[in-house]
């Protein structure tokens, strides 16, 4: 493993595989699994936006354009690793075991969506930018302290690399020699702010130098390179008990959230160009080219995804509202008198 100043890519946007491609390029079972997950997430995403538009969900941040690396991180992480997501990590969360229903529920304004039933030790999405990086460092400390050979992976946006917490986390993870993978999803924008206004750095990977450890750049839309890099990073982090940073280059193909209108600050042309690099299509074409799937399979996969999402939506829409008690009951293990009183007060309204 080495520092990269150049973006690692094996499968280029036109579907050409480079000669030095790693093993994963031929592990078609895995790739197919990844593809299916990506399609599911893209379908989920589409539906989430539709639910928002029809008033059945609130503000939602689409992951369109970053599914590839997001899904891959979920695939590579071990069950006993810890994941500290930001809010645009549906792909990773899905493969960690967060159910689509839980995701709808969370974005639907219901805390219970964070009560993950299949990955009890993952963090919920963090809204305050970069703050979750420190939680990952703390979790990695706990893992190491308890003698586990696991790591914590934290994901962040490009904008997050301007926040103090991101650097404090890198520095501490380095100083305390903790197995933390910093996965930066550089989708080129922080809401409307383009990466050029965010930093004077040529790459975000170089920021890892401030923590004293390696930083790699990968084409986050290249499934082969992303898988390879994320896997290496996680292995290195665990083996050497040391942090690693990955900058995954993607592009936000959607508005920032359903409350945003990206055409205020970027052109349709730029967006159209970015679509040409889309990772999900790239993987699909690669699988077709290698005769792993055909057009018919593609349609089946999509329809399976639709079914899965539809079922999740149905479940979501059937969820009963919480009791008003729930507003009070999760603040403390031992509820203080004043809260108990206020709870009674509300119940009597």
């Amino acid at each position: 493993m080495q520092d990269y100043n150049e973006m690692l890519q094996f499968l280029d946007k036109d579907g050409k595989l480079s000669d030095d491609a790693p093993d994963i390029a031929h592990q078609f079972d895995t790739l197919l699994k990844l593809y299916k997950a990506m399609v599911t997430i893209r379908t989920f995403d589409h539906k989430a936006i539709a639910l928002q538009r029809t008033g059945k969900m609130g503000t939602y941040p689409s992951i369109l354009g970053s599914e590839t690396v997001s899904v891959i991180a979920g695939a590579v992480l071990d069950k006993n690793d810890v994941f500290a997501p930001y809010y645009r990590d549906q792909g990773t969360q899905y493969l960690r075991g967060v159910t689509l229903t839980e995701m709808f529920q969370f974005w639907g304004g219901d805390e219970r969506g964070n009560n993950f039933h299949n990955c009890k030790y993952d963090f919920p999405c963090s809204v305050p930018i970069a703050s979750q990086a420190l939680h990952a460092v703390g979790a990695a400390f706990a893992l190491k302290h308890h003698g586990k050979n696991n790591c914590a992976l934290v994901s962040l946006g490009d904008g997050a690399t301007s926040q103090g917490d991101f650097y404090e986390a890198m520095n501490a993870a380095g100083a305390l020699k903790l197995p933390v993978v910093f996965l930066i999803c550089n989708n080129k924008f922080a809401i409307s702010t383009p990466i050029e206004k965010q930093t004077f750095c040529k790459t975000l990977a170089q920021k890892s130098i401030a923590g004293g450890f390696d930083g790699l750049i990968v084409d986050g839309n290249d499934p082969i390179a992303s898988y390879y890099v994320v896997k290496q990073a996680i292995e290195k982090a665990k083996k050497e008990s040391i942090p690693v940073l990955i900058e995954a280059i993607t592009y936000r193909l959607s508005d920032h959230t359903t409350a945003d209108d990206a055409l205020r600050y970027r052109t349709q042309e730029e967006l159209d160009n970015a679509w040409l690099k889309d990772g999900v299509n790239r993987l699909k074409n690669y699988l077709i080219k290698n005769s792993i799937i055909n057009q018919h399979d593609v349609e089946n996969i999509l329809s399976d995804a639709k079914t899965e999402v539809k079922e999740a939506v149905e479940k979501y829409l059937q969820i009963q509202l919480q009791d008003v008690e729930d507003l009070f009951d999760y603040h403390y293990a031992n509820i203080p008198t004043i809260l108990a009183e206020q709870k009674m007060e509300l119940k009597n309204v």
Partner: protein
Amino acid sequence: MSSVTLIDAINLALQYEMEQDPNVVLIGEDIGLNGGVFRATQGLQEKFGENRVIDSPLAESMIAGMSIGMSTHGLKPIAEFQFMGFIYPAMNQIISHACRMRNRTRNRLTCPIVFRAPFGGFIHAPEHHSESTESLFAHIPGLRVVIPTSPERAYGLLLAAIREPDPVLFLEPKRIYRLHKQEIDNNGIALPLDTAFILREGSNITLISFGASIVETMQAAQELEQYNVSAEVIDIATIKPIDFETILSSVEKTGRCVIIHEAAKSCGVGAEIAATIAEKALTSLLAPIRRITGYDIIMPYYKMEKHNMVSTTKIVQAAKETMEY
């Protein structure tokens, strides 16, 4: 004269003062081309350029800290925090520096900064987008905290905040950003930063509020008429310093009072108002002071947040109970 919403009024005031004073600069996340997530700064970068409307990197401590350096060196920064829930990374800069620079240098360096932030709940936004933690700031010496509740007051108070030689936290009740329009004259006239507004005169009970809850408070006052209760409504508007003169003389007149705010009750601004009334107008009180506020809880995610909102019904009921005491 033009008919504008509260958020339009903010935009107007910013624009007015930027035209008057070349040292006024705006800094914040996405305030340029995008005009801010609520469009408060819409059109201003186009008009005043990237050097006066600065799209900053994503870092609140930086926004506050840079504003301090800008303000001590001749500029008048108006810094936008995208939501009040994201102001906490800047607490150190605000508390330890912006509010202290004048005092620690005996007037040599000063920080005429306006920190703007939308606050309050019930816009169905994700977590951290519905904060009302104004009382944290109302405790900090050296700071002023101002909250407008109408387009007119937004315009006049923001102008005053910009012209004030000291740091002002200007909290904007986002729920009522676009609630109604009002005719305002873009005449550059500021309002005072230490005077509460009597929104409605009354003789039986004083309802004291600020921020978006003013809406429910005014509705409650209206409803109370049915019960022959004449309610006076005070919008305290300046949370620090609070205009106790207006409050006390009203309570001395009515003898009864209900304090209303959206923030959690314990150690909220309502506590200070109640404590001061109990200290200075105890003998005028014909009934205990009531506080109708948010519960001492984290703002629920939006599916349930309405339960934590102050409602007209709750205010009316508290007022009636106070009257019947």
